[in-house]
């Protein structure tokens, strides 16, 4: 994996500053959602082989939660977006998980150097 990660707020930072929470696709169901929805949210995973969105936190920097688009087979990091921007770009708060964010809101290396 790249040793430098482009945080949208802090710029290029060493990977060790980030902690990885895991798959960003599962979306927390409503409290009154059926049992199956909660079971799936807590336990079941797509376990993607290829491009995947993950929740990372920049614990050694701005402490923001980020969504990192990363390939689980090549370890290439494609894009890093603030989690709030990512969710907003997905539309409704329950919007369907792993679908990719609109490209306009992705924060690749370019904007990170800002």
């Amino acid at each position, binding site marked *: 994996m790249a040793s430098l990660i482009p945080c949208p707020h802090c710029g290029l930072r060493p990977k060790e500053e980030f902690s990885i929470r895991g798959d960003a696709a599962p979306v927390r169901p409503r409290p009154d959602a059926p049992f199956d929805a909660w079971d799936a949210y807590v336990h079941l*995973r797509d376990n993607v082989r290829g491009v995947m969105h993950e929740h990372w936190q920049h614990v050694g920097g701005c402490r923001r939660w980020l969504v990192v688009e990363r390939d689980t087979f090549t370890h290439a990091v494609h894009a890093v977006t603030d989690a709030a921007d990512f969710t907003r770009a997905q539309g409704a708060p329950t919007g369907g998980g792993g679908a990719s964010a609109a490209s306009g809101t992705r924060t690749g290396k370019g904007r990170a150097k800002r």
Partner: protein
Amino acid sequence: MKYSAFSIFREGLSGNRGWKPAWREPDPKAHYDVIIVGGGGHGLATAYYLAKNHGITNVAVLEKGYLGSGNVGRNTTIVRANYLLEGNEPFYAHSLRLWEGLEQELNFNAMMSQRGVINLYHSDGQRDAFARRGNAMRLAGEDAELLDREQVRALVPFLDFDNARFPVQGGLMQRRGGTARHDGVAWGYARGADSRGVDLIQNCEVTGIRREGGRVTGVETTRGFIGCNRLGLAAAGNSGQVAEMAGMRLPIESQVLQAFVSEGLKPFIDQVVTFGAALFYLSQSDKGGLVFGGSLDMYNSYAQRGNLATVESVMEAACAMVPSISRVKVLRAWGGVMDMSMDGSPIIDRTPLDNLYLNCGWCYGGFKATPASGWCFAHLLATGESHELACALRLDRFTRGYQIDETGHGAQANLH
């Protein structure tokens, strides 16, 4: 061909020209009674016990690479049965007993070495937890001894006993634990299964699972369609991918774990020693190399290689536990893809499809489980019923709230 001291002597005299390949290389038949996906330790052991215990020999093991190319050939070879929970400990106890007779059973040198496994503790709380674990092990009929600081010092004098932050207070010892040659185990089971008529088919990747009305009819592979009456999945790190071919999502995440081997040293450490202050474990191979590893890289991966940050933290743990190895050179490092389950315990069970069976969730502890996993999975495939030793290792335990969570971390795969 039976292996013996005499056969080595005879072949030595005749220029070693009489050795035969240890197994055949058959082409796949059109149909088998049982197909097993994955030629790792578990798939091969399952095939062996299907033939040996249940007389089912019309069996194929399909392996996408070569036999033993997965985790069975990548692990740090530690064999132990020091679990706490009821659903786990009797299963691993049975496994250790199978290990003890394995080489005679298979007529193959798996280099099983019961050198003892010591888990160090560094605080009063940790000591209490290990005392409890040791008691649970003894209740299950296993051996366990709580060693104090001086007893540990007598065995492994070179630890950093007076570390200011993590002084070594003692350790939990299982004397019957130890190590085994990982490839040897895979080869031994492969040879045993082959000689009983099982077809081991290498370079044969399963790419699809054909279904008809809630039943599996066979698998699509890179070597064509192969039909079967029953299908068993034992794909370890690739379990999620293979299960997806049958329309299933699993409580599994695939993550990478690294391991390391140093240059060869003179005999230095006799046991397997694990650190209690960080996830780190150390032993010495018969060739002299120190074999060690630490925690996961903590992210999903199918790459079979890890990251420098983890390398660094493993080396720091090594030097913290055994300062004297700080100048030893590391020769090799590699990674394997772990099938991390949501409670850290494995799954051997039926699935929603009638004749599809699942073996996965071994996390980074599945090598020691190889014999019992094959034993119980063969029982399930042959009879359709869970073996009593594996009856807690159910797929639906997550939904029902019967997780077997040794570490108490909850449904966060990489924390187990």
